[in-house]
């Protein structure tokens, strides 16, 4: 479901990008207040469950450090909330390096995690600080089954070039002509694959096709709980076929050095596996974001 939602909102997002770009700088939030008057740090989040859990973790860590926090969650999509961050009505927001960089610099050529992060720091407008990125990612990735990975010794996309059997990639039909689809695999890695459409956005039909060996490769979000549930292997992408998308907090100037240190500790503790585990709790147990974040902070000794 989330893939569907995110894909469609991505579409809407791209359409609104031009609008938002022309409006940015002059637009106020709905409250129209600009910087919030109270001393509290306003933490925002996307309308995306995984993002809300991370936002909740920031908020609770700050509260534990004695900072007054106000929550303004589920604001919506990037073109809405980035304006709020830029005008200071939201002070802290969990973001994703690649997509945010593309929002500010649509024609960026940075693909790999560190390049993207460096470019993002340059691209951030005045008054917006980009804090340290976390190891956790939420981005498209190529996955194979554990059995396939072990049989052919494949842990990176590069290794696929040496696999002696023909490979078929399964995914939504639009993936066939995307730069990270079959042409991208061929151009960047010299890997030839066939393509078969499975229109469920990396959902259960795609996983089933992988397990049946009807396809050998699929594109699934790195933070999707089904990767762990089905023991799939995410392949490394050393040449940056997919835009790196690490979880990264963006903050206003109101977030001072002490608060930054608190948030940095959260980012440092958030591993890729942690994010998947947090998402899984949300998907399978339907627990509230606040509970999931509280348990995780306790586990990490950050509460």
């Amino acid at each position, binding site marked *: 479901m989330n893939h569907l939602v995110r894909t469609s909102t991505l579409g809407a997002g791209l359409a609104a990008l031009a609008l938002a770009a022309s409006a940015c700088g002059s637009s106020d939030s709905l409250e129209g207040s600009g910087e919030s008057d109270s001393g509290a740090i306003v933490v925002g989040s996307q309308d995306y469950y995984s993002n809300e859990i991370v936002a909740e973790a920031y908020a609770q860590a700050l509260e534990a450090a004695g900072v007054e926090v106000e929550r303004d969650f589920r604001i919506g999509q990037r073109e809405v909330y980035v304006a709020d961050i830029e005008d200071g009505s939201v002070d802290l927001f969990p973001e994703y390096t690649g997509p945010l960089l593309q929002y500010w610099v649509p024609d960026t050529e940075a693909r790999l995690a560190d390049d993207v992060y460096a470019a993002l720091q340059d691209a951030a407008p005045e008054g917006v600080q980009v804090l340290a990125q976390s190891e956790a990612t939420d981005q498209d990735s190529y996955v194979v089954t554990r059995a396939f990975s072990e049989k052919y010794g494949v842990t990176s996309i590069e290794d696929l070039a040496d696999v002696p059997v023909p490979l078929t990639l399964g995914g939504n039909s639009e993936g066939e002509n995307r730069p990270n689809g079959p042409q991208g695999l061929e151009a960047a890695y010299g890997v030839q694959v066939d393509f078969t*459409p499975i*229109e469920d956005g990396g959902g259960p039909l795609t996983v089933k096709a992988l397990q*049946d060996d009807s396809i050998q490769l699929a594109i699934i979000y790195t933070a999707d709980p089904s990767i762990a549930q089905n023991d799939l292997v995410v392949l490394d992408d050393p040449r940056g076929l997919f835009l790196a998308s690490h979880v990264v907090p963006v903050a206003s100037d109101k977030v001072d050095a002490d608060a930054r240190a608190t948030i940095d500790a959260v980012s440092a503790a958030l591993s890729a596996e942690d994010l998947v585990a947090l998402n899984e709790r949300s998907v399978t147990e339907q627990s509230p974001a606040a509970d999931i974040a509280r348990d995780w902070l306790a586990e990490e000794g950050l509460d």
Partner: protein
Amino acid sequence: MSLAGDAWRWLSSAESWTRSGGVVERLTEHLAVTGTVVGIATAVALPLGIAIGHRRRGGGVVVALAGAARAIPTLGLLTLLGLQLGIGLSAPVLALVILAAPPILAGAYAGVAAVDPALVGAARAIGMSERQVVWSVELPLAAPVLIGGLRSASLQVVATATLAAYTADAGLGRYIFTGLKSRDYAQMVAGAVLVTGLALLLDALLALAQAAAARRTHARPVPEGTR
């Protein structure tokens, strides 16, 4: 409207038709899926419908079941079957058979059951076997309604066979899914136009067959010497 123009340009380009994955290939796949599905559904549902109509019992159950089966959402069923059978054509074919069977079953049953019981009685009275009653009396008279069931099933299948592209690299649905997801609306509209055209064509052919059967039933000249 540039969209209609773009769709027309897409449709009228020779490359759209002849390339690998072009219209010729997709149209052939689409017809093959439709033919397979209607063939299987007919093989299962037609004899069953005729048998129930001939015995004139159990009709209420058939109508109720057929009506209920039509309410099954094919896309949901396809996902469910796909999780059992894997990707490829078997899941969409099975899902479409379940879509096609009820109208065929209902048409066959309704057609045969509507034959005047007096005629059937008369056929038995002149010494016809049950097989002869079915083949020579009931089926010719039931043909228009029976073909109507086939026609309704074919129309639904040819239009819904676009779903084959949900789990397989086949059929005209590929253009619709790809066009929709990559916002290539010209391709999507062209795919929809092709499916619509194919559906209308197939429906027109079956309407002709139905009309021919109806003429045969109602306007058959009475043979000499039987008056």
